[in-house]
């Protein structure tokens, strides 16, 4: 046995690796998927630290500072490195006599890191008012408007941070529910077969052949106006999870069906293992990676659903902030023409969907390179 392959130790490692490890190794080779994973983690960091990253109160309105264009940070001035933005100056419109604010180059507001701003709850429990950056010493109503302000004078950048949190977590919650539904129904379908399978299959086909958006619009519109923001949040999550569970159920069912016939399952049955043990110990690990892949591919659909519904005004309601709600303001083309920064919420939406798609694709390829 003189020749053989180069690294016997590596071969052993390969032979003994678990399914998850193998999947991870294969996944690592897809650079795009890795980058996407980084992007996703970044987004969720933003979601968790949304308030910390925000510069001014996302809910504070001030009609006088509406539609301020994005302010660039000026990093240098005569004194050297001194990041600052311009303060606001009151200007009276000659025709309407309305007072509005515009940036005033004469006043410089220094921009510094770790300043104190509005109070919020970090992680929901620690009350603090430290923010990553912001202006120092401005008058009330002045701040740094990285992405400009909307019609009501709210800082778009800060709202985007908070919207990220809401949209991402609703997506997550929705997909979890979908996953639960999908695994439950798909699992029952695939495992027991027979008329239960037929019934569930018919149901899935039914749902797939119906245009879903009108139905969910109807459901969402039916939510009473009197419900609190939280209740609406909850209900919307349930609604969007009803959109995506069918795909997951099909994947799960397909895997169960395929696995049922596999020799190793039959072997387990023959050696007397209980049903539960077979499912959890033997079958689950081999399709865990498929499920993860399908789930991450389903997340974008959740996000799009919530964004669309909120965009239409049927989803979350103010004062909740989500990407869809932010984009609502961009509906009017005349307004948009004058304030194109209102569209900036489109960027994170597209980015996160791309990221989840690449990530999910990479996972799927890693989980089953032949599938």
């Amino acid at each position: 046995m003189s020749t053989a392959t180069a690294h016997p130790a590596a071969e052993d490692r390969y032979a003994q690796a678990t399914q998850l490890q193998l999947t991870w190794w294969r996944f690592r080779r897809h650079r795009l998927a890795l980058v996407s994973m980084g992007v996703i983690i970044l987004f969720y960091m933003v979601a968790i630290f949304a308030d910390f990253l925000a510069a001014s109160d996302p809910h504070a309105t001030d009609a006088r500072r509406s539609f301020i264009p994005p302010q660039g940070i000026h990093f240098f001035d005569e004194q050297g490195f001194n990041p600052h933005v311009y303060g606001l100056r009151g200007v009276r419109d000659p025709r309407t006599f309305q007072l509005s604010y515009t940036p005033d180059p004469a006043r410089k507001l220094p921009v510094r890191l770790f300043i104190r701003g509005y109070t919020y709850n970090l992680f929901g429990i620690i009350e603090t008012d430290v923010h990553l950056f912001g202006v120092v010493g401005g008058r009330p109503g002045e701040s740094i408007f990285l992405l400009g302000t909307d019609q009501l004078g709210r800082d778009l950048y800060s709202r985007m941070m908070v919207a990220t949190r809401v949209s991402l977590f609703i997506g997550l919650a929705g997909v979890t529910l979908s996953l639960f539904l999908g695994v439950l129904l798909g699992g029952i379908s695939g495992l027991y077969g027979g008329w239960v399978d037929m019934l569930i299959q018919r149901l899935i086909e039914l749902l797939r052949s119906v245009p879903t958006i009108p139905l969910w619009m109807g459901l969402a519109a039916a939510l009473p106006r009197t419900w609190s923001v939280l209740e609406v949040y909850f209900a919307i999550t349930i609604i969007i999870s009803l959109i995506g569970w069918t795909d997951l159920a099909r994947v799960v069912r397909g895997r169960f069906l395929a696995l049922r016939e596999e020799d190793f399952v039959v072997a387990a049955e023959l050696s007397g293992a209980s049903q539960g043990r077979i499912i959890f110990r033997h079958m689950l690990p081999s399709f865990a990676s498929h499920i993860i892949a399908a789930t991450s591919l389903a997340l974008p659909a959740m996000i799009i659903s919530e964004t669309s519904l909120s965009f239409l005004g049927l989803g979350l309601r103010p004062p909740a902030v989500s990407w869809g709600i932010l984009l609502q303001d961009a509906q009017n083309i005349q307004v948009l023409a004058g304030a194109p920064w209102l569209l900036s919420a489109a960027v994170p939406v597209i980015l996160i969907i791309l990221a989840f798609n690449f990530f999910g694709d990479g996972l799927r390829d890693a989980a089953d390179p032949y599938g």
Partner: protein
Amino acid sequence: MVERVALAVRDLAVQFASEQGVVRALDGVSFDLQAGRTLGVVGESGCGKSVTARSILRLVDRPGRITAGRMLLDPGTAGEVDLATLDPESKTMRGVRGGRIGLIFQEPMTALSVHYTVGNQIIEAVRQHSDISAAEARNRAIELLGEVGIPRPETRLSAYPFELSGGLRQRVGIAMALAGDPQIVIADEPTTALDVTTQAQILALLQRLQREKNIALMLITHDMGVIAEMADNVAVMYLGRVVEYAPVEEVFAKPRHPYTRALLRAVPSILATPRQRLSTIGGAVPHPGSRPSGCAFHPRCVEQLGAICAEQSPRPIAPGQAGAACFKAEQAEGAAA
């Protein structure tokens, strides 16, 4: 009397570029295919038999390519063509495919398309190589189906492949290979997927067709029994090289290469003592990407001569002559000379 050579392959080398690097699937393959005779090509899976067949027809796709060698069709005549130099998509090459060299497949189930009738697929082959009308092509197709022994061929034309049995499907495959009236037919394990009785019928059919049309048959198989029955000459392949080449009687009576001897020993014999241990060849065929140093077979060779086999590659067989690429065989020859 030596028949004229229909196809002469010389030093054919094919490699595949893969993630693990360059894999040499064929590493200098040479043999002669004589008109009207059967060349049996035998070897374990992975030795390059199918790649050879595909290469002859220039059907090896990216990431594989021919890196060296010649494949001379009708060598020594005015119409000599080196297939290795032709553009695979050219009219000439496509004329060769099916028109001068036909191909019969291993798996009749998957070799025929399920979306089109048998007639459609055969007529397409016929019309590709001759300029005849649709009606004439149809008649020719019926004729072909009759020649391969399919009863009531007119009715079969409108059948779909999945409506036929395995044996019938393979006959259709043979008919399709003959549609262009080729002088050379390559049969890639034509009977492996069939049961034993059907196997015998198909082999008999191939023999008959060869006699009637004076076809040069290249029969690829891993079954020594088929070789014994059908072949006139034998080429034994291992890891992309021809390790022994000789007329069939010599291969069975006086095998020159240790691999051939091992293969013959491994054939279970009905005459053997019951409950006798089956003879196997130790180890497994190495992946072509991790070729052993020196003689490719030496790690598994029970007769290897130590250092020389581990370090040096044996001399390739002189084309057209019987011989083996083996140091031990060279020694034996030297001693006999």
